[in-house]
């Protein structure tokens, strides 16, 4: 709980720091504040399992684990922001504030115990993101991204809200516990058809938010048009939060109705995997490839929701962590390359390894992890996902996932091939200290989790 308060207060403090022209202190204060929030979250581990605020929020271990991942991800991304926003505008403090507000929304999303809180969390986060996507005011792509994101986001929120209303109509409460009881009590045929409609609409709304096919159309354009740093935030932290919210709802309330929604979800998963991977294959822009790959990773993460149960929480936790740290490396290197070459195509990476062995090595680890090659965290994530699906005897779904994993190798290795095996312009990337730090930490974490996943997989 304290985590949420600290993050919200921190956002205000940062805003005021901007007012007093304390530009240099923005980043240190934000990071320090987030680390404080992180510490407070960890301190609540195993402590307070009861819902608080009249059942509005529940800071159980699930909420804490996902808060920690999202906060850590935000810290890493903020560290990459040095001199990034300054180039866009003088009012830097607002950007930090908005990111922090988005994070506050995310913390609500992972710890809701009441559907109204889910809605509020999603909206706090989304509204912040609409602004962030458009912070490059004079850039056409950025404006397009913001508008598209806003329209699609509003549309999907409509679905979500309508779904919540219908569920309220049948269960007479927003409270997860009450809805769960309603489902359990009426499991043998007594459930109001309105409830099923509400469930479907919520499914659609949540699939929009996590960018699962066929509700993914906004993702590539928004991810490509937004400033790279914001894209990194959206495709890692925000996506993780979306899955946490999704999982919490389905595990707590809708698990007994799996017969109803599982077929739909399986189709969605298969579609997401194929569309994400096959389209990613044909991209010439690294950034756009990452956008599509994030769709395909949403597909893999949906496996957990198909698997359900505590093993599924572990699986999402591991997968989201692996995916987040690997993507942060990818986006960090992309920012560096783009700054120097002005392009985010694969060609920009040609011959990078010659003069920048460290950066190239970190990016290689990230790509191996995203491709799911063993000894990296990404493999463990995929392994957990496959296990949870095989446990439900969804063998064909795993076969589909395997085919997609093979396709994935193609496009992730393209950048490795470009860096190591192709001749380039021998350019030396200027790598600021923070970037080195983020790259090193993320690469080491990727390997450590790959070798000893019990560090995170043992939480539940």
């Amino acid at each position, binding site marked *: 709980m304290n985590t949420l308060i600290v993050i919200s207060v921190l956002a205000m403090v940062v805003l005021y720091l901007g007012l007093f022209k304390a530009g240099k202190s923005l980043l240190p204060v934000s990071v320090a504040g987030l680390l404080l929030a992180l510490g407070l979250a960890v301190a609540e581990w195993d402590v307070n399992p009861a819902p608080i605020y009249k059942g509005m929020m529940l800071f159980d271990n699930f909420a804490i684990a996902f808060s920690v991942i999202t906060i850590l991800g935000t810290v890493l991304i903020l560290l990459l922001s040095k001199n990034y926003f300054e180039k866009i505008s003088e009012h830097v403090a607002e950007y930090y504030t908005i990111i922090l507000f988005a994070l506050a929304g995310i913390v609500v999303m992972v710890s809701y115990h009441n559907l109204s809180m889910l809605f509020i969390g999603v909206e706090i986060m989304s509204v912040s993101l609409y602004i962030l996507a458009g912070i490059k005011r004079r850039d056409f792509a950025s404006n397009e991204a913001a508008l598209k994101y806003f329209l699609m986001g509003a549309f999907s929120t409509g679905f979500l809200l309508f779904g919540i209303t219908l569920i309220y109509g049948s269960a007479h409460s927003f409270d997860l516990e009450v809805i769960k009881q309603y489902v359990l009590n009426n499991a043998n045929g007594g459930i109001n058809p309105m409830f099923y409609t509400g469930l479907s609409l919520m499914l659609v709304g949540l699939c929009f938010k996590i960018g699962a096919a066929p509700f993914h159309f906004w993702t590539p354009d928004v991810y490509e048009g937004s400033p790279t740093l914001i894209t990194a935030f959206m495709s890692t932290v925000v996506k993780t939060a979306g899955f946490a919210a999704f999982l919490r709802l389905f595990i707590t309330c809708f698990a007994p109705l799996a017969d109803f929604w599982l077929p739909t979800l399986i189709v969605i998963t298969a579609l997401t995997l194929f569309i994400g991977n096959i389209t990613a294959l044909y991209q010439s822009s690294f950034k756009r490839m990452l956008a599509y790959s994030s769709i395909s990773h949403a597909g893999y993460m949906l496996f957990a929701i198909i698997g359900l149960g505590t*093993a599924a929480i*572990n699986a999402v936790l591991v997968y989201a962590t692996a995916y987040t740290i690997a993507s942060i490396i990818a986006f960090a290197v992309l920012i560096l390359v783009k700054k120097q070459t002005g392009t985010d195509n694969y060609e920009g990476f040609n011959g990078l390894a010659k003069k920048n062995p460290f950066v190239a090595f970190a990016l290689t680890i990230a790509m*191996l992890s995203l491709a799911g*090659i*063993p*000894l990296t965290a990404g*493999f463990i994530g995929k*392994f*957990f996902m*496959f*296990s949870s699906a*095989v*446990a439900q005897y969804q*063998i064909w779904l*795993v*076969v589909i996932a*395997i085919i997609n*994993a*093979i396709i994935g*190798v*193609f496009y992730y*290795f393209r950048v490795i*091939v470009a860096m*190591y*095996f*192709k001749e380039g312009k021998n350019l030396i990337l200027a790598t600021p200290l923070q970037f080195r730090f983020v790259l090193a930490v993320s690469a080491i974490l990727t390997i450590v989790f790959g070798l*000893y*996943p*019990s560090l995170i*997989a*043992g939480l539940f």
Partner: protein
Amino acid sequence: MNVLILIFLPLLGALLALVAKNFAKQAALLSSLITLAIAGFLLCCFTPDASTQYLVNYPWITQMGINFKAGIDGISMLMVLLTAGLVPIIILSTFKHKYENAGAFYALVLFMQSGLLLVFTALDGFLFYIGWEAALIPIYFICSLWGGQNRIQVNMKFFIYTIAGSLFMLLGIIYLHLQTPNNSYDIADFYALQLDSQTQSWLFGCFFLAFAIKMPIFPFHTWQPDTYTEAPTAGTMLLSGIMLKMGIYGVIRWLIPVVPLGFQQWGHLAIILSVTGIVYASIIAFTQKDMKRLIAYSSIAHVGLIAAGIFVWNVQGLQGAMIQMLSHGINVVGLFFIADIIISRTQTRELALLGGIAKPAPKLAIAFLIITLGTVALPLTNGFIGEFLLLNGVYQYCIYYAAVAGLTIIFGSVYMLRMYKAIMQGNTNNLTVNFKDISGTEIVTLFIITFLIIVVGVYPQPILHISEAAINHLIATVNAKL
């Protein structure tokens, strides 16, 4: 003393090679020799019965029931010896090359050795899979970074092929894990499973795909000739000498004993594919004009016979496969080394452009002859005993298959001796007249290889003895379940 040291020592060596910069190759050689010494020590203390020795078993990912369980029995022992013995030879064979970024090169070679040793000693399904892939990643980079012209596409194909196979194997492993009563990946629990025949059939398919691609068995071999040709010689040696044995070992340890009923249904098809591969690859080898490609196809033919010997699943076949894996490893490394010597001096792989090298290079000619004879399975060379046992095994299964498989010896002699003739005999030409004979580390390397060929050929009994009990035990286990 346990198997952990053996597995992790090459990793330390890899770090050392990275740090040692200018002395990378010496550091790598030192590391591989220490590994060999440890393997030798393990061999000395090894009791050749059916038990698993030097066992380690640590909890690793406890939530998933994954343990770091590894150990050595008679079958693993031979594979460990193969790996530990060939890597120093391979490293020694590179001493005359100047690799750009040598530290990374040798580090990757040693990293791969570690992965291979893990594959050959793992007794936990997950651990086996990790080793399986850990051996693949370094060889991909070795071949792509230091390979020839078309290395990027060729190695991509290789990588995709193998990873596709192994992902299906992963699916099989996960499925088996979920069937075990105590939620484990332990191979003993896999052996104890009683699955119905239909399930075993598709599981057989999953595992077979991975192993067949790795060996490679016809028709999954299409990646192999290109990859062998484009790889740097050390990479080719690692691939052909050791890595393809992963597939064979996998069949012996992880395929047939785990899904015996699946094997009963599909084993016949596997034998047909293996035997077809022998003939097919031999015929293609006849027509090759490129030295490296010829050796690559000959390797497919030899592996086809080994695979056939395993799938007939009797003592002769399996014992023959064990010793032939060693022999083939030694011979093929020798052949590729000689090819490398010739290519680096004449800058060509075309057989037609070579000839008469025996005159300026008599030492090379002798070594080449011994290795060729070993490859064509002349009695008193190492190839003979293996192929004899293998054919014997296939004969017991079906005489017609043995007849077809036996062609490998005739075909093999034809294309190998044809290659020898084209390269070494005849008249010298502009390219070969000033050919410098072997010297220094080349002599040492070839001496070791030829020495092994003759010693194993004359007195194979100790080697057969190491794996005998383990093989008998394994066959009994499977036959009890059929």
